[in-house]
């Protein structure tokens, strides 16, 4: 046997043995397409350096497609995914179904007590942490300081709906395509109904009473919808019934909105490089009516492990890396503190560098002002601020959203829209067995 042949055989054996020793576990992570998730995919070298035996395959999908794919896989115990990106709406439902693995045994350096209490509460089912928050958000008022100054008004940090309406009126100049207020109008449980459900909380309304009877025939809902339609009709942009988050973001960035009440994550967009009004934006808490509840929501995109995953140890290692305090420091070191995923950890908001970001304080105050376990003035049998954490809510929320969107488009009156909502929700809840 020649020397070179021996060397070749030796090298082959070495590679084979190394391969066995370094056997990789591949985990599949399903996620939505947003800036923070894409940023994480670009920082995977850090994870691989710390976990050389784990390989991550990404599946990035549109939010609703992701929801459908993952629901099918979990419900059939398919085991195709090892880590899921899920919202605050799914966690209590899927956790109760036994579809998610508990994350109670994450390593000590994960520091579970550092999670923001409101966010942690929304991700805990029967005392078990079922998902780890990747980023959290609430909603708040983003307003144009220059237009408020020009109108001789000052926005308080915690405005009422009366103040908001007066400010909207003062900032509206339709001849210049300048609209006092921009709000979601596009139908959908995660679109206009996220806003309107949160807004209704501040008016004392609720989706259901303690016996699951729909409450759209109550005066609180009428007051909510009348206020919403009045401010949007008189001071809102044309075609608002087609506007969701992205459409309003564009309008605000183009300087066409005096105020925009929406997700706190929008703060970095309206003050970012694509915004023509980046240096003129102020922030305030979502408005209230003096009833003890504000019209702000609570949401978190979180990472969870389906109970059907066969690679739970590797999945936990990934979640620990992606949602740990060290990850926030990693993002800050590479991209600056303004790009750190917000709204998950107390320590982030006690960091002086992060606290100096203009929207940091208002974001944490907004998150702290939301309580998913007691979302409304009156008692309710459900969990969730801008949603009702029951499986039927996606369909119900979208159907009711279509009625309210039609009212915004001028196709229905307030009374007609509320009556239709009451009828359809009553039918569905009766059929689903909630109403005996």
């Amino acid at each position, binding site marked *: 046997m020649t020397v070179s042949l021996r060397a070749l055989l030796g090298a082959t054996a070495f590679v084979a043995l190394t391969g066995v020793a370094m056997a990789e576990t591949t985990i599949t992570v399903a996620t939505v397409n947003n800036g923070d998730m894409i940023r994480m995919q670009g920082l995977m070298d850090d994870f691989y350096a710390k976990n050389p035996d784990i390989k991550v395959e990404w*599946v*990035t999908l*549109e939010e609703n497609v992701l929801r459908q794919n993952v629901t*099918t896989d979990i*419900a059939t115990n398919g085991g*195709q995914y090892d880590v899921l990106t899920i919202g605050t709406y799914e966690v209590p439902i899927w956790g109760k179904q036994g579809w998610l693995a508990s994350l109670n045994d994450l390593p000590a350096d994960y520091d579970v007590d550092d999670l923001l209490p409101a966010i942690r509460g929304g991700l805990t089912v029967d005392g078990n942490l079922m998902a780890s928050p990747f980023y959290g958000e609430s909603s708040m008022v983003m307003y144009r300081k220059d237009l408020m100054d020009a109108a001789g008004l000052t926005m308080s940090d915690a405005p009422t709906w009366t103040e908001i309406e007066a400010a909207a009126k003062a900032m509206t100049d339709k001849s210049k395509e300048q609209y006092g207020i921009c709000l979601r109008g596009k139908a959908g449980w995660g679109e206009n109904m996220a806003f309107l459900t949160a807004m209704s909380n501040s008016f004392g309304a609720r989706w259901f009473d303690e016996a699951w009877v729909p409450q759209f025939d109550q005066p609180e809902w009428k007051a909510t919808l009348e206020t919403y339609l009045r401010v949007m009709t008189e001071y809102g942009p044309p075609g608002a019934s087609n506007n969701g988050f*992205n459409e309003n973001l564009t309008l605000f960035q183009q300087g066409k909105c005096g105020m925009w009440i929406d997700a706190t994550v929008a703060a970095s967009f309206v003050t970012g490089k694509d915004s023509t009004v980046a240096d003129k934006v102020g922030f305030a808490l979502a408005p209230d009516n003096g009833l003890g509840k504000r019209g702000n929501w609570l949401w978190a995109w979180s990472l969870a492990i389906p109970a059907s995953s066969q690679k739970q140890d590797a999945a936990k290692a990934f979640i620990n890396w992606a949602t740990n305090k060290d990850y926030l420091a990693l993002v800050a070191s590479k991209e600056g503190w303004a790009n750190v995923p917000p709204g998950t950890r107390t320590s982030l908001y006690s960091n002086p560098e992060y606290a100096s970001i203009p929207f940091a304080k208002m974001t944490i105050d907004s998150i702290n002002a939301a309580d998913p376990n007691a979302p409304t003035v009156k008692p309710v049998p459900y969990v969730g601020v801008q949603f009702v954490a029951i499986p039927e809510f996606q369909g119900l929320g979208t159907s009711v959203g279509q009625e309210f969107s039609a009212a915004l488009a001028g196709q229905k009156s307030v009374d007609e829209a509320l009556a239709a909502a009451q009828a359809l929700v009553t039918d569905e809840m009766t059929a689903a067995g909630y109403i005996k």
Partner: protein
Amino acid sequence: MARHVTTQRRAINSAAAWTVALMLFFPILWTVLTSFKPEAQAVASPPIFLGFDWTLQNYVDVNEQRDYFRYFVNSVIIALGSTALGLVLAIPAAWSMAFVPGRKTKDLLMWMLSTKMMPAVGVLVPIYLLFKTLGLLDTRVGLVVVLTLMNLPIIVWMLYTYFKEIPGEILEAARMDGATLKSEILYVLTPMAVPGIASTVLLNIILAWNEAFWTINLTVTDAAPLTKFISGFSSPQGLFYAKLSAASTMAIAPILIMGWFSQKQLVRGLTFGAVK
């Protein structure tokens, strides 16, 4: 006068044809144009048609985020595989229905077509469970099988229609010359129906290429085709239309180019036997 009327009518017909063609083509044109816009200009109001800051950045971003080639290869394999398997099953079926029809042939054809009327989501869970049990989830083989079954009624119907146009006497003559059934189908019927088969192949490739429900729901990473590639570029929060348009343009470009080069064959096949 007659000549004037004819010319005028021809002009009107041409104008109508161009109008319809432009209406059909406009969404594709708009997608392509949007793919070259910066994100902020992609959602500008009023919309900017040509006077925007042309950029290739969206294509750069899309390619940095995803491995286009892997999705493309899967789309090619799934589209060609399901078409080939569909033809192997459909040619004998269409032959028997066209040349040896039974009492229930028409009913059978209608029943086959009626299976296309059922919403696919109605059988998602049973098929998902079946695929899981057979180990076919996220495999190209699984998708080839499911897309073949989805498109089989259309292939059989199209081939049946083309075969009906071929005189049965020619096949009889072949039989009298000693042709076996296999030879009759392979060497007599198939060559005569080439235009029809070609258009069936083209149409089936297009249907399989564009199929989004099963290809998205039954794949994860290994077998994911371009439909799944596009789906990942929609975003709930933040601007994404320009990048989504770039991804869509990259996904439809191969099938558009194929359609462009084979349009003669496609039209010839689709109008086969239409004028007697």
